[in-house]
């Protein structure tokens, strides 16, 4: 079986990979945390977050700090599983072609 077939199309984007990497090791992060970790514009980050949310890979919680909105993002069980599978496939490719 070709490990490349196990790669998840949704994780083709560097930005989506970045979002998932950060969320898999943190309980939750807000928009600015993510923005400072991944070199990306606001609009671009929002689009990719939307895609991940639509695929149910991440959860979005709207909250407030004082009057300012504070939106928290966290990874779902499904997202965590999919990302781990993607990582395993990447590792297989590296080993397979050695």
């Amino acid at each position, binding site marked *: 079986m070709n490990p*490349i077939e196990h790669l998840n199309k949704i994780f083709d984007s*560097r930005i989506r990979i970045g979002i998932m*990497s950060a969320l898999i*090791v*943190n309980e939750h992060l807000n928009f600015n945390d993510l923005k*400072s*970790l991944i070199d990306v514009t606001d609009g671009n980050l929002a689009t990719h977050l939307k895609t991940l949310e639509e695929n149910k890979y991440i959860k979005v919680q709207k909250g407030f700090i004082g009057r300012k909105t504070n939106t928290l993002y966290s990874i779902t069980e499904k997202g965590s599983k999919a990302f781990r599978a993607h990582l395993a496939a*990447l590792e297989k490719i590296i080993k397979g072609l050695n």
Partner: protein
Amino acid sequence: MQTHDKQSSLETLREIHTIMDRSARFISLSGWSGVWAGAAALAGAAVAYGWITEGAGYTATNYQPYVWLALGVLAVALVGGYFFTARKAKADGRPMWNNATRQLVLQMAIPLAAGGLFSLVFLAKNDVEYVAPACLVFYGLALINGSKYTLSDIKYLGVLQVFLGATNLLMPGWGLYFWATGFGGLHILYGIFMWNKYDNRRTEE
């Protein structure tokens, strides 16, 4: 047509690793912060030693100046520590205040608050000789607790502080020496070690 060859897979994995690390740990802690805090502690201990040898000593009734001195040392150490670490974060192009820093502050604040409470109660009950051990033990526990969110080396500093504090319990009356060794000596040694391991190497690159 294969977009995912070995090379690009390696690069992707490397990037994933970098983001995981950067998001979960605050790694801009500067070695100079440790040296600065240690120097402030030694200066404070020297002043206290001067007061004691002048014959004032510390007793149940006149410990207040020592408390103010200790709080002054803490303030100087924190301001300097913040300065060097903020400078390093800026040089690295990393934010000072992110999820990892919030966790670090919170995880350290809990043992520190408990330690502060113990120290206040010991002072109030005139058990002055237990103040230095309590400071050292709780500060060490705070470092161990916070080490999950920053350079993990600080947990060894934490273990040493707990060990010093516990030893001090068995040698009451030597509090000032233990305090100076823990907050002064260990911080300076650790700052130099950390500077060599992280800051120095970074400049060479």
